[in-house]
């Protein structure tokens, strides 16, 4: 009896293995071929020289040396950091503010929420194109409206803030949604207790709501930082990285390096650096999140 039990358990295990791997086969093919393999390929390519047409040849650390010393990529990293530093705090603040206004239970709140989310479903590229026209210096809608002739996208000191403003405009509704969900999750008893203790208005927000929103805040900050680091579509539509590389964010630099300058090796180095930066941010956030926030989630 015991022997046949073991045999049967063995048979079940084999059957489970067969079922499990059959079910996984399509997705495993996708994960290996189109996610894991490309990461290996990009690391490999970062040690090669390739111009899209000719043969691929090994060049050792040459790409790394040129990317890390010629200043172009350094400029892109700096531009991206400034962009992230502009976009994330501002859109978080506006989103949080809008969320507090929309969770007061005022009639019509759902309508406003719907309107605010609208830019999030549209293609970032198309929105970039629309804003390119609105911000056009002579016949653009904005300059027509304010009666000025401001070079929003071709003045080197205005271009990056303008691109950031367009991206903030696109993202605010999305950020608002998350803060609304977070605010609505705060138990009424907690707010009631705070009110009885004399907290109201501003102090209720700063001392009760904001600390309780910490998990939402972390989630929003991490996802928006990571997506801001990869901004491409709006930059492509608005400025193509110009003027004078003042909006030349990392994703745009990778694209131009690969498909305008035809230097795939250098583009691969930049992709590898971006990968390392974003994985580091994610892992650091995971560690911090696990230590500081999980116990508050319930």
């Amino acid at each position, binding site marked *: 009896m015991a022997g046949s039990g073991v045999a049967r358990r063995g048979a079940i295990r084999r059957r489970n*293995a067969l*079922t*499990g791997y059959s*079910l*996984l086969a*399509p*997705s*495993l093919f*996708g*994960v290996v071929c*189109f*996610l*894991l393999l*490309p*990461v290996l*390929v990009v690391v490999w*390519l970062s040690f090669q020289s*390739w111009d899209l047409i000719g043969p691929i040849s090994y060049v050792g650390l040459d790409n790394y040396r040129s990317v890390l010393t010629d200043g172009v990529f350094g400029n892109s990293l700096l531009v991206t950091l400034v962009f992230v530093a502009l976009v994330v705090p501002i859109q978080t603040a506006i989103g949080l503010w809008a969320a507090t*206004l929309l969770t007061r239970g*005022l009639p019509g709140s759902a309508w*406003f929420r*719907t*309107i605010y*989310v*609208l830019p999030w*479903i*549209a*293609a*970032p*590229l*198309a*929105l970039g*194109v*629309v*804003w390119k*026209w*609105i911000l056009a210096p002579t*016949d653009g*809608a904005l300059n027509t*409206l304010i009666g000025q002739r401001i070079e929003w996208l071709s003045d080197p000191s205005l271009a990056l803030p303008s691109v950031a403003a367009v991206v903030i*405009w696109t993202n605010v*509704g999305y950020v608002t949604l998350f803060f609304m*969900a977070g605010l609505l999750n705060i138990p009424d008893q907690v707010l009631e207790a705070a009110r009885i203790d004399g907290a*109201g*208005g501003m102090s209720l927000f700063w001392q009760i709501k904001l600390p309780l929103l910490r998990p939402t805040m972390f*989630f929003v900050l991490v*996802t928006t930082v*990571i997506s801001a680091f*990869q901004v*491409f579509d709006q930059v*492509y*539509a608005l400025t193509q990285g110009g003027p004078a590389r003042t909006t030349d964010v990392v994703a745009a630099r990778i*694209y131009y390096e*690969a498909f305008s300058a035809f230097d795939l090796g250098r*583009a*691969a180095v930049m*992709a*590898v650096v971006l*990968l390392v930066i*974003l994985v580091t941010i994610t892992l650091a956030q995971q560690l911090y999140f696990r230590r500081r926030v999980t116990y508050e989630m319930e």
Partner: protein
Amino acid sequence: MRWTRPAAVYLVLVAGAVFTLAPFLLSVLTAFKPRQQFARESALAWPDPFTLDNIVALITGPAQFGRAILVTLLAATLILVGQLISSILAAYAFARVDFPGRNALFWVYLSTLMIPPVVLVVPLYLMMTEAGLRNSFWSLVLPFAFASPYAIFLLREYFRGIPQELIDAARLDGASTLDVLVEIVVPLSRPIIATLTLITIVSHWNSFMWPLVVTSGSEWRVVTVATASLQSQFNGNWTLVMAATTLALVPLLVLFLVFQRQFVRSITFSGLK
């Protein structure tokens, strides 16, 4: 506190709504504006008369926007079907089948969520070139149609909430794993599948960088790439360009208005575009 007054709140909310909607309204107005009027009058002028010329020119003209819409729709649909099938199968395996290596593999899947899409563009381009698929319809679809670790993660969470007794009962009646999936698991998971459907369609209808890189010429141009090339090709022909951005938004807008509640919930739920 002045700011807590409803009137002040509404003032802020309306200002926000106007600021959000204005670019959309401007592009729609321009799409229906005669070209001559656009050249002559202020950008803010009302169309006089309303015209469909721009839309017609866009679809029948050299821009081939109609073809771009079809290509995009077909690619997004194939990606959606592929992702749903492969993700449902994988999620069920991770949730309900006890096979060796399950946890390790699940961690591998999860870890791929950290890979930024921008990083994959260059290596995928090389791989598609080597496979002879550059500038083909399949290059738009293949890299995304087999797996979405993200969908697998969400579906697995959902499947774990389905009562095991239901599955066991079906098993006793002689149902195979696929029967269980088709007859019990999928029908019970309709909300999460609807959510994933919306997210997948929106993100692939709007995707730009990969199609821009992997296709060239007008044959396999998707909507976003066609819009961008209109902008650079017919520089200054903004009525045509705005017709393109308007037309590209219509399907998503309809989808959004019909499934509004679902959409809002899915965005909050997913945290991804």
